[in-house]
């Protein structure tokens, strides 16, 4: 049962990254691909129907973690206290920027919200990447399973660790590039005109950067946590996910070269799902690695809730998760085709 919930939680976080990743990515590249006000509105129209629902995957994944692995959630989130609040404030600012921008026809008002949207999206991508790096590298868990990390220490990725060091900054930059590439690919699919052309150019360049940095990040992960690759070698699921990621990035390059924007976006989703799936499968059963030794790590078995409660939760989860996917399908279907910017004064 705990294994099942590990897979569910990992899958939900992976879906979150693939979905909210594209609207974060659209925010990251928006200053570069959209230069006039109608073009900015085109970018917002492309993500408008989706971004709120995409963000719900973060809450739902957090909820899955809460019910299935309360110890992991409690230690992890309180240990990263400061970083979590910076993250929440970015989510807050970004949501307000998207919602409030178009209400007032006034260049300064819009420029200010465009800046908040782009800056918060960029910071969020870096934070998520750094958070991922922290999980891979490990945190200083004590014997009761608690920790508190400062924002940074000596940048060495060795105890005493901080949230930021050379490795987590590297994963943060990688996430920024990967989500930027993902967002640019999405915009290439959903927009037309100059925004489409610029998005495709941006996507090509960003994907080259991702392809170069990916092996570097992989090697660095091995340096800070030598147990990841043996973990991967033992599990067919991890190898399959890694192959899926490789197939995804190859598809991105092939489709971008031949002009198949939708195929490129699917490849991009496959890449993100693949790298997160491979990492999670290699990491299992660890959920929060301790830098002070494996005995202190929180695993799916030591950090989990009770069997009976999880069996109950699985029942309603199997009802709710398909519903969520159906709504997502309805929204995608209703907004099929290229996004068109809202007319001035439309909506609320």
């Amino acid at each position, binding site marked *: 049962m705990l294994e099942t919930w590990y897979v569910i939680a990992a899958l939900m976080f992976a879906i979150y990254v693939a979905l909210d990743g594209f609207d974060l990515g659209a925010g990251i590249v928006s200053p570069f691909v959209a230069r006039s006000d109608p073009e900015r509105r*085109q970018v917002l129209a492309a993500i408008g129907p989706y971004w709120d629902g995409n963000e719900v995957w973060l809450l739902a994944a957090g909820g899955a973690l809460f019910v299935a692995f*309360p110890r992991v959630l*409690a230690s992890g989130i*309180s240990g990263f206290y400061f970083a979590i609040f910076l993250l929440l404030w970015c989510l807050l600012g970004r949501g307000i920027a998207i919602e409030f921008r178009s209400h007032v026809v006034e260049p300064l008002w819009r420029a200010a919200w465009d800046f908040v949207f782009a800056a918060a999206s960029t910071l969020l991508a870096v934070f998520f990447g750094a958070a991922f790096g922290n999980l891979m590298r490990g945190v200083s868990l004590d014997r009761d399973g*608690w920790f508190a990390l400062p924002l940074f220490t000596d940048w060495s990725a060795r105890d005493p660790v901080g949230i930021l060091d050379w490795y987590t900054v590297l994963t943060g930059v990688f996430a920024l590039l990967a989500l930027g590439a993902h967002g640019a690919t999405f915009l290439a699919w959903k927009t037309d005109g100059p925004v489409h052309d610029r998005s495709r150019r941006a996507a090509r360049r960003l994907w080259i950067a991702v392809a170069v940095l990916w092996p570097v990040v992989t090697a660095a992960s091995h340096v800070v946590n030598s147990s990841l690759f043996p973990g991967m070698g033992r599990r067919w699921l991890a190898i399959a996910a890694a192959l899926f990621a490789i197939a995804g990035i190859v598809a991105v390059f092939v489709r971008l070269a031949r002009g198949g924007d939708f195929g490129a976006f699917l490849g991009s989703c496959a890449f993100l799902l693949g790298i997160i799936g491979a990492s999670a499968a290699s990491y299992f059963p660890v959920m929060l690695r301790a830098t002070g030794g494996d005995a202190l790590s929180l695993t799916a078995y030591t950090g989990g809730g009770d069997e009976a409660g999880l069996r109950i939760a699985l029942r309603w989860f199997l009802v709710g998760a398909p519903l969520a996917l159906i709504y997502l399908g309805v929204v995608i279907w209703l907004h099929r085709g290229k996004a068109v910017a809202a007319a001035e004064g439309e909506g609320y």
Partner: protein
Amino acid sequence: MDDALVFHRLQFAFTIVYHYLFPQLTMGLALLIVIMKALGLRQGGERWNDAARFWIRIFGINFAVGVVTGIPMEFQFGTNWAKFSRHAGSVIGQTLAMEGLFAFFLESSFLFLLVWGERRLSKIGHFLAAVALFLGSWLSGYFIIATNAFMQYPVGHAVAADGTLRLVDFWAFVLSPWAIVQYAHNMVAAVVTGAFVMAAVGAYYTLTRRHLPTAGLFLRLGVTAALVASVLVTVTGDRQAKLVARHQPVALAAMEGRFESGAHAGLNVIGQPNVSARRLDNPVVIPWVLSFLAFGTFQAPVQGLDAFPRDDWPDNIELLYYSFHIMAGLGTILTAIAFVAVLLWWAGRLERSRPMLWILMLAFPLPYIANTVGWMTAELGRQPWLIFGVFRTAQGASPTVHAGTVLFTLIGFCGLYLALGILFLFLIGREIAHGPAPLSPAGRGHVEPVHA
């Protein structure tokens, strides 16, 4: 109490009080919008659709702020109350996760269609989007109340060998009687907020002689819904008070400012609790009524604070006492206003009665205050427990987060929320100044390709 605990509590209290200003309106409006869209379908014509469109725009702005201020609430269980999450996560995590899965996805998927899709959907389709949003927002409310009800009146759980709580009976937990009564009370109170805000805007337009036909619809629907909902608030509030009397007698004693136990208990209408002297100063008492309200007979003995150890008293009796009395007082005033307004409407004089229109226009903050102090009554009454009788608040805070860090984030929230509040009022003010408008071919709801 150590400093960190004070700041943890302040931060949670501040962020949730602020957050709840928005969902109480959207949950109330969600129902009223469904009613307006249904009337629009039945009567044909565009009057009710124009009215609904205006409120959907107000709903959208409120919803946006509600969503972004709600996200920190979910996270604070982990950031600030980590020991509580570790202790009870297997139980309360269920309802919190269900809220995400069953309610948030529904809301987020259909809000965009309701706000932006009037031109793209058929009339029935747009009505169904309103229904989906109503279901989503009311379900969301249920899961939150069910979570809170467990903290007020824990049922369906067992204590495991390691001391953590486990879920044993799912249905007892999800359909706890406390959850059902508190939910009913809470939701009709949210409708009171929506109805009074609607009536206030209608009164404002009528007094300034603008948008008159639509303003009349706002007024009539507003005061009718306000009357029905505020009567139901009283009925459900009475049910809830009886539950408190039975299961949290110490909270009832503190809410009532009752320091001594005894039969034939009187209802304290006014008075100032003097906790150090253990008495109520300047009391105005209606004899025997508390016994009757709490237990159904005038002789029933009602426990006072003296029946409980000092350690189990709610830790802010004064604030709890005033919260409860302000809630009850405002509830009475709001019911009276709605009753008189509906009488005037029946007499055909509502839209010409300037004093009543002034009262309706200025009364809209009152339900907000009543809802806020109502929540404070529930939450302060639960103290000093996080889970009543099971787990104390002092045991629940995160062990590794010190006071300085929490104060930093608390100050950050104060600043951000102040800015957010100013922006919100600015945008709502613009919407009200702009007023309801028909769906014009080139205007709202119309979609036009940028690169035609």
